[in-house]
């Protein structure tokens, strides 16, 4: 791992987070672009395995930062990249991707109405594109085991800097960052707690699927890389508390991060306050630039009523993740599998 401060490649400089102390027992692990960790690792491994010959086209479905990380790494590797995205892709991100040489395809807006939403439509289009190419490589961040594997570097860095880590809190999307970081860390620290933060209407931890405004976390499809047995507790937040926490992070700590970082901060701060003798690390996946016109705009927040409700001091502890109600919820997952939790929840939901 490079600690010398000079890097042969730009993407290498994105590997490690900055550790910033927010409270005596709370550290933020702030990434400029966390998805670079799996993107770089997956593509370098593919190259080592001979899967990235000069004519091979890298293809992936993404509407977010994973695509940006792939595009940056594709520059170093000098490979073509096709990204399948949905119409809600951020216009500035689109321009940056194409400037890096990526071809970005957007699925039609009508796909949102079909079961599985944009994510299913993107996967279908991805298969079509791959079928039409002589040689292609798809990183498949949702199922590729190299995604969680990549985060051993982050776990190594955390223990080297902090020694003891009692709890890691972070947003969950593909499952790679939380399962990879905590999974590797537990070889050394088996007791380390994992708190996953999800958004409402995400299927990851049993909510019914639905439209989600909060970006950077939550899914409509269950990713293979999500190992539910990692998690001790799961939190869900609606956009309002997540946005307010994001702003507090900026106002109180001068940390300019995205709303998934804010949502994780909300849960981590609550747990760290309740457990002053434990050291908590909160994962913050990306910076706030993409949200300057939304989360960082008071008029935008006010128009949507996000400033009407005060930020709750604590989550509502629920005992059935399948029937959520409230803006900030927590559930003791207790390192169980998805089926274990859901069969129990179904039973407790029975009348009588």
């Amino acid at each position, binding site marked *: 791992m490079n600690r010398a401060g000079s890097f042969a490649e730009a993407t290498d400089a994105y590997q490690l987070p900055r550790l910033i102390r927010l409270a005596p027992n709370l550290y933020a692990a702030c990434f400029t672009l966390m998805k670079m960790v799996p993107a770089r690792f997956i593509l370098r491994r593919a190259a080592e395995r001979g899967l990235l010959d000069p004519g091979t086209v890298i293809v992936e479905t993404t509407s977010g930062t994973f695509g940006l990380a792939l595009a940056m790494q594709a520059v170093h590797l000098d490979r073509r990249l096709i990204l399948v995205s949905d119409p809600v892709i951020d216009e500035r991100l689109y321009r940056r991707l194409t400037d890096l040489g990526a071809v970005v395809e957007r699925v039609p807006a009508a796909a949102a109405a079909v079961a599985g939403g944009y994510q299913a439509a993107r996967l279908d289009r991805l298969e079509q594109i791959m079928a039409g190419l002589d040689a292609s490589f798809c990183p498949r961040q949702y199922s590729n085991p190299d995604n969680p594997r990549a985060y*051993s570097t982050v*776990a190594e860095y955390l223990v080297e800097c902090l020694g003891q880590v009692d709890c890691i809190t972070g947003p969950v999307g593909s499952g790679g960052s939380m399962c990879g970081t905590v999974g590797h860390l537990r*070889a050394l620290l088996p007791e380390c707690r994992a708190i996953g933060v999800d958004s409402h209407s995400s299927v990851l931890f049993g909510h019914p699927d639905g439209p989600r405004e909060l970006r950077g976390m939550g899914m409509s499809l269950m990713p293979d890389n999500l190992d539910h047995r990692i998690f001790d507790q799961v939190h869900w937040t609606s956009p309002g508390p997540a946005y307010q926490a994001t702003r507090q992070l900026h106002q109180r700590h001068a940390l300019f991060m995205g709303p998934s970082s804010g949502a994780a901060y909300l849960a981590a701060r609550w747990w760290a306050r309740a457990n002053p003798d434990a050291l908590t690390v909160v994962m913050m996946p990306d910076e706030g630039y993409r949200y300057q016109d939304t989360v960082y705009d008071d008029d935008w927040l006010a128009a949507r009523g996000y400033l009407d409700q005060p930020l709750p001091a604590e989550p509502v502890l629920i005992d059935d993740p399948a029937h959520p109600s409230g803006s900030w919820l927590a559930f003791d997952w207790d390192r169980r599998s998805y089926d274990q939790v859901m069969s129990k929840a179904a039973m407790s939901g029975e009348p009588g």
Partner: protein
Amino acid sequence: MWLGGPTSYLDEPEPLAPGLTSGIGYAPAHHGELIQGVFEDDAGRLRRALVTMPLPGRGSRAVFYPSQSHWGVVGPPGLTKARRAAIYTLREFAAHPAPAKGGRVEITSNVPHGIGMGSSTSDVTATINAVADYHGVSLSREEVGRLAVLAEVASDSVMIDDRVVLFAHRDGDVLETFGHRLPPMIVIGCDTDPGRSIETLSLPPADYTDAEAGEFQVLRGALRRAIAAEDVALLGKVATASARINQRYLPKPGLETLIELGLRHGGAGLQIAHSGTVAGLIFDARQAGIDLEGCVVRIKELGFTVTDVIEPAPARQPRKNPRQPCENPRPHAPQPRRPQAAAS
């Protein structure tokens, strides 16, 4: 194994040049490893490597009696690796102004064989030092490590005694230096499988999974911190984690029982010999009120043999003048392992 010319090697050593009687070398044993697994080198390749747990109280002493007239290298018949080490080392000195052609190696050692305390590395390293000593040369620690791996295929890092290193034991090079010394700790050594003897080279190399490679990466990061911060508690966790991963390859009977026993007595964790049967309960030497006697009693009650209690080494002495034979370089007087061989 006998290589060399026609002369009978049972002859008495021939007269030596004045002032040069023989070469003497010493090497300590070890008490297994703090960690052993696969780690990335600077080029990003995965390499097998380990961090040795030193055992200052035991070691091997080799005496090299040179021959200017024949190429044979003779010595204790069982110690093939030590004789091979002598041959490789002699080859290193072929361009020396007055090289020995062959010679005889005698070894005295108090290192038990086959339980993971590095008896063969200790013999090999002492032999290399003895041959170098005869030639009036002090080899660098890295050079000794390289020769030891040549002679042994896989070697521990007892020769690198001035710092804590991650040693690629099948290549003989250092992947990382963690610091000058280990934090002060007391280690209660025991044999987890009394009577069993393990031949290191008969073990297939552990086939670590990709996930385990990631775990070793985390342990390496923790080790950096533990040694820099003199954090015995963290070091104990690293050693325990490595011991648990190794259970898949060479299981230690009663490992979890010993780990729990150590923790109950205020210990930091457990280190093992990854290719042997010994294990050591790690305690912070600076911690007050450790019930070492009570812990030793419990270990014996559980049916394990207590082998050594390793105390923190005093500050490292400068290397002794190799020309001055050291009669008793360690607290315990060494016992000849094979007196019949030494007497020939």
